[in-house]
């Protein structure tokens, strides 16, 4: 099972890319845990998570080839 992750704003600086792929992730809690292991600085940013462009607020099941987007808040104007 393969998940594609897109990152936005200052998150791309932390992972040093705008996207990455992870294998064998079953749900969004597992995904966050894995991301925090790989990139500990991500834990400091309160990002919003969307699966296939739909924002989710609770732990959600992931399926093969899902696209998960991580959107951080920013406030510049």
């Amino acid at each position, binding site marked *: 099972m393969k998940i594609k992750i897109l990152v936005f704003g200052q998150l791309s600086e932390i992972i040093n890319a705008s996207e990455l792929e992870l294998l064998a992730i079953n749900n969004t809690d597992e995904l966050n845990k894995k991301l925090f292991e790989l990139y500990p600085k991500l834990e400091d940013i309160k990002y919003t998570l969307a699966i296939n462009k739909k*924002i989710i607020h609770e732990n959600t099941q992931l399926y093969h080839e899902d696209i998960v987007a991580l959107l951080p808040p920013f406030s510049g*104007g």
Partner: protein
Amino acid sequence: MSFTQNNDRYHRQIILKEFGETAQQKLLNAKVLVIGAGGLGCPALQYLAAAGVGAIGIIDFDVVTITNLHRQILFSANDIGKQKAATAAIKLAQINPEIQIQIYNFQLTNKNAIELFANYDLVIDGTDNFATRYLINDACAILNKPLVYGAVLRFEGQVGVFNLIDNETKIKTNYRDLFPEPPNPLNAISCNEAGVIGVLPGIIGTMQATEAIKIITGVGKPLCNKIISYNALQNSFYDFEITPVLNPIETFPQNEMEFLNFNYEWFCSSKDNVSVISFIDFEELRTKEKITIIDVRERNELPLVNEFDFISIPLNELPNLLASIPTDNKIVFFCKSGNRSLKAVKLFYEKYPQITAFSLIGGIHAWQQFNNKT
């Protein structure tokens, strides 16, 4: 107001078959409040005025600085030091003398927001800090007022529409459904520190004006329950469907009374063990004892501070200059809005955990307004 006497001015949009005289009349009857005459506010204001929005309100308590000019295109070099709201109003009156422009040269707070917003049909958020963004969102949610949101940083921008019911799904969402928890200011970065490419707020601010025009006229499909993320480097867009938060972690005001009692500065401040000082406590501390005050803004940043003596150490120079700070008194760091000074306190504590240091909550700009009033 009727558009008939100004038919030529709006001719090119009136001849659009989707738009026509009906939509133009709706624009002329509309009242729009633009919060912040900055990078987002300038282009939004220009297009709303040009398009013939009948009444436009501008709220901003800032003055024009030279660092604004690369993106805040309503202002010219000879406007430096002038009030933004008043200067913007003069420029807009030159673009379209047939509309009403009202300026509010004061800071938006939860004490004045409800009364102010009630006079308008729609609000455009062009502010530059999280506390004000949550405040605007909550006031619009309580008043059930459509809010066109925009934000920029570096090469990326976000635009969306809140508090607008989707007629098909009957769902209505707002900023708290997008970002239920405010970011820790120690990790949040502003354009003052991180930079922003000049054209970016031009694009996002213009998209905000577009959404406002669509909502007012009913032409097209507004970005209802959606947020769009734009990347200028890739020239790419990505959209997110916002879904309501069913179990909020953070409580937020549900009515006007709760809104008035909600402390937005505190809500968006660091919940880590970093000490902050309020305006009142800062005044008391200043009068009671000798303290060292440090300005961590860039050297050319406004406003000028002549109410007390201070040392200037821009935040990026602070790590190298920590040893030069006198530590015989308590220390208060300040910056424009209170975020950089918070980072300064954290840096300071790493070297001097035993010295009492504070960050002036809300920043020097708001402090000066507070000080002038009291």
